[in-house]
């Protein structure tokens, strides 16, 4: 992000950026950066909190008046941590049956996904261009047979993940985003499939499969699960 500030400002476009990792910005030294302590993935701080977002945006815009940089301004507001709901239990039983399949799990979630889309009026699913049964079939096929191209698999997996988490947000007691992510990794067949797929990708001769296995399939915070799953 900081590099773009250098590029654009040098080409004649004034810039003001947000910094999510202060240590990176201290090295790159872009023209103007507002350091925020928000979670990665939430540069404006709080979803569905327009006044909060507006204050962050205004602080970012106000830096444009300054030419005494490189500027690295600490934004004063923080987002309080979510309430600990470690005792939260998913109200929708997705406990796998002995003969359960990924397809069946996707089908069970479809009604909740539809409710989430209706409530929000939008979905973020769709980068792969696949419908969810086809994406699930791609994952199952990758586990049971030949691996598809890494990029095809990656987009299908990301769409499935978004589908699951959007669906879970419409559960009767949806918990928090943290508990829903924990639910995804603790309880779903899809997560188990991804953890089983990782070593197969790592063992592939294809460099892109190996990169998918090592970097962009399983989040760093969940990789501890790989040991017991292989």
């Amino acid at each position: 992000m900081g590099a773009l500030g250098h590029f654009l400002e040098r080409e004649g476009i004034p810039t003001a950026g947000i910094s999510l990792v202060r240590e990176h910005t201290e090295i790159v030294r872009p023209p103007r950066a507002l350091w925020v302590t928000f979670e990665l993935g939430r540069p404006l701080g709080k979803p569905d909190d327009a006044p909060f977002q507006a204050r962050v945006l205004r602080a970012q815009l106000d830096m444009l008046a300054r030419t005494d940089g490189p500027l690295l301004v600490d934004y004063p507001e923080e987002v309080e941590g979510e309430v600990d709901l470690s005792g939260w239990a998913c109200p929708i039983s997705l406990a796998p049956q002995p003969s359960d399949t990924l397809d069946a799990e996707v089908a069970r979630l479809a009604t909740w996904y539809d409710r989430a889309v209706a409530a929000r009026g939008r979905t973020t699913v769709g980068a792969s261009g696949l419908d969810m049964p086809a994406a699930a079939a791609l994952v199952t096929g990758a586990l049971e047979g030949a691996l598809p191209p890494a990029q095809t698999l990656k987009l299908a997996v990301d769409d499935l993940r978004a589908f699951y988490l959007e669906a879970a947000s419409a559960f009767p007691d949806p918990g928090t985003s943290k508990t829903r992510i924990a639910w995804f990794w603790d309880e779903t067949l899809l997560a188990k499939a991804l953890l089983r797929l990782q070593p197969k990708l790592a063992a592939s001769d294809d460099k892109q499969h190996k990169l998918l296995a090592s970097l962009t399939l399983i989040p760093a915070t969940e990789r501890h699960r790989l040991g017991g799953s292989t």
Partner: protein
Amino acid sequence: MVRRLSELPEVEARHLSPDRVKCPTYDDTPLLPGKPLGQRRVAIISTAGLHKRGDRPFDRDDGSYRVIPAETPAGELVMSHVSVNFDRTGFQQDHNVVFPIDRLRELVADGTVGSMASVHYSFMGAFPVDAAQPHAKHLAGLLKADKVDAALLVPV
């Protein structure tokens, strides 16, 4: 919440370590003067790997950008960032937490900001710097053609 890397759990701190991320360095930093905010035309440049549904998804080491016209409905925005190491549920809940176009529109409406660009853009932030530079140079020309004189850089 991300404070200093030293305060993060080890697995996350290691993942974000500047040594691993290979942050670029520059000998100097240009800072351009400009008009008062109320006369500026502002564009959003995201690095969240955003694009319209149906546009070409981002791929590994992709330094190019995607075009997001200002009138793009929120429901058309999807994300194909290669990284899995950031929260996506915020974006799923409210696109403005990543791409604050409605907030910018409000600031234009109340006169705080002069006007909004007709087109916004997104890169995919995990790009190698050399791969993005020619695209950024091209983008600067497009922004000037749209009379943009301020770019809001929003990471993910």
